[in-house]
């Protein structure tokens, strides 16, 4: 049995996923992003609309909660193994960074971050009972990542300042990267035309 299929590696990876979500410590990247969000020059601040922006950020936070839950469900299904599981753990960790960054930005802007729903609600909404194979899990993940990438691109015009538009762009880039990897894993045909994402 090679290292990637070592049971202790898989168990350790699952523990990583199954560790309770909600760590509030921000990564250096998240702190930098938040500094960009809040360190607005006076001209930018005058154009800002914090209540509207925090509402949009909370929608984004909802997306991240769902993504974290989706990967959690995938891991708990025990359908993912070895390197595939490790990639799922990695992508979930990215979404946790997104979550923490968004929640921190919302708080700094005077809003209240949306809370994650109970796992059973995500399981029902994402039809987790229908997941019967690793392919099913990866297809669900790919669909959600593509949807999230398009969602972040779609909300860019709605933000009131450039800092938040940039954050949305960076979030979209991460989700697109996730989708690209997953699409390759499930042999989804790559887009034949440019400008597939966003509209």
């Amino acid at each position, binding site marked *: 049995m090679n290292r990637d299929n070592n049971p202790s590696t898989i168990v350790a990876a699952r523990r990583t996923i199954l560790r309770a979500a909600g760590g509030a410590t921000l990564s250096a990247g998240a702190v930098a992003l938040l500094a960009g969000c809040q360190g607005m020059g006076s001209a930018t601040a005058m154009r800002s609309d914090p209540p509207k922006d925090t*509402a949009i950020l*909370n*929608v984004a936070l*909802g997306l991240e909660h*769902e993504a974290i839950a989706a990967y959690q469900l995938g891991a708990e299904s025990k359908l993912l193994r070895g390197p595939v599981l490790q990639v799922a753990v990695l992508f979930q960790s990215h979404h946790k960074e997104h979550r923490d960054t968004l929640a921190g930005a919302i708080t700094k802007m005077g809003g209240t971050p949306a809370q994650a729903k109970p796992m059973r609600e995500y399981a029902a909404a994402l039809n987790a009972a229908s997941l019967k194979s690793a392919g099913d899990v990866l297809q669900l993940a790919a669909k959600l990542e*593509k949807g999230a990438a*398009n969602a972040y691109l779609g909300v860019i*015009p*709605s933000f009131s300042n450039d800092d938040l538009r940039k954050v949305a762009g960076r979030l979209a880039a991460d989700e697109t990267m996730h989708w690209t990897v997953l699409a390759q894993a499930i042999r989804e045909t790559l887009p034949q035309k440019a400008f597939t994402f966003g*509209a």
Partner: protein
Amino acid sequence: MRIIAIAAALAGIFAAPALAQDAAKGKGVFESRCVGCHSLETNRVGPALGTVFGRKAGTNPGFGYSAALKAAGHTWDAEKLEKWLTNPQAFVPGAVMPFRLGSEEERKDVVAFLRSFKK
């Protein structure tokens, strides 16, 4: 009269073609642009949309709508959905949905797709 009829026919030929609604294309738009937040059957970040056509705004059971959308009072039809997708906050000030579908063709197609579920 014949000249008028010919002129009308020629005007129709050279006029900019009206954007046809294509539910099949709309399915593709829905699956790429909308499924990030919505599904047809279940509430997620956004409400389920399988029954949105003909539904009163802000009334899908179990979804936490904004106060603005709960108070909007209208019933979703093609025209209102297209306005909503163009700019939700302009159509219903105070609504939470931040996503805009910028392409008129894609808006019409996805509306056609959603309408295809209306019984």
